[in-house]
């Protein structure tokens, strides 16, 4: 029983004319939840829990900022130790960012620490 962590640095190219909405899907029938904040305002949590169509702001306003996301996983599915999260910005030419990993033992925890540079 343990907690593993993974740090991910990525970027997302925005369509600056549109609003940005984020949906996070926890795959593999596992338990997961996320917290979001912007790197320049770390004490302000934008949202916490299940993230579905969360409005982040206008593309033009978000350009240049870095979105930080912490996603915690708990391996509840006895059929698999795989974990995955899909970050869908609903904006931009490639809106989906999918990351995969796995825990060692059943009921382990895993944490994704993500930083998305928004361009």
């Amino acid at each position, binding site marked *: 029983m343990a907690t593993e962590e993974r740090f991910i640095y990525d970027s997302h190219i925005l369509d600056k004319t549109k609003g940005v909405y984020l949906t996070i899907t926890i795959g593999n029938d596992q338990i*997961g939840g996320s917290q979001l904040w912007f790197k320049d305002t770390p004490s302000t949590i934008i949202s*916490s829990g299940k993230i579905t169509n969360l409005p982040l702001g206008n593309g033009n306003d978000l350009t240049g900022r870095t979105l930080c996301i912490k996603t915690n996983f708990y391996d509840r599915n006895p059929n698999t130790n795989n974990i995955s999260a899909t970050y869908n910005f609903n904006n931009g030419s490639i809106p989906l960012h999918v990351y995969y990993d796995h825990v060692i033992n059943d009921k382990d925890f895993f944490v994704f620490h993500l930083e998305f540079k928004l361009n």
Partner: protein
Amino acid sequence: MKNNYLALVFLCMTCKLYSQINTSFKLSDLQTPDAPGFILADKAPASVQKPTNPKTFGIDLLSLHQGGAVQATPYWFFQHPDYDVSKYLHRSQFIETLNLSVATFKTDTSSVVTAGIKTLLLRLYSKQTKAGMVSQDYSVAGIIAKFNLPAEEKLARAAMDSVAKIIDSLRKQTIFKIEFAGAYLGSSSNNSFNNLLGNKAGIWLNFDFSPFKSGFDLLFVSRYLWSVNSNAKTGKDSSFFDYGVAVSYQKSRFDGSLECVNRRDMSLKKNYDRFAFIINFKLSDEITLVSSLGKDFSSVNNIFSLFGAKFGIGSSKVKVGPRP
């Protein structure tokens, strides 16, 4: 721990086993052995089976004529990033529960190998249970997101373990389930694969009706079996139709069921009955004892009693060695 040793001794007394086990299981998964090959061969303690969640990979060990089965559910070998509670509730379960198995056992005169397949065709929940699952999904996401892991792992574990139990409990609250299964059986008189000859095949449906949250399940089976490569002179070139019913009650560490199955020999126009009382008793999270007592289909020597144990050792790998 004492119970574990007792069960080990019990197992070693009844059969020789040498295997690796790396799966855990729950009482509700334990209408053992659930490999279709054992059902086809009438070697299972229960003939009317409760549809269960198949294991990704598992080995069934039971003192059934030195038999064993290997099962795999290929769907869960791969990543499924879009599989969340919504997919669980609304997508067909056919692929995700498709379970393949190979079972083997010995008779007095031959070695038998079976290949089996089973999958859930239908899984129905009440609107209330569905709403509960979706609501639970939202609330659990809110809870886990707030933990500062790994620093707060202990706190998070206490919370998540209890939440996982609630989710498991909700998922078991099906109103109705239909499972399809099929198997093909071959035997060899000299333990050689070269002489392995198909004997028997069968397809069947298991129905599980549990409208009340009382622990009672009403189970039905409808099964068609036919002989393969048989000798017409002996009258074995037969086909059979089974239909049966069982009442199952599950509570805590105990699962008991009473079943009655009628077998119609379509060629000889004869009927045979089977009655059985089956008990699963969970000694610990890893070990369950299984006992079955009743009357089998055959008209002679038809009183049977089966005893066995089922092992799952969490995620650790262990070896259960042969009797010295």
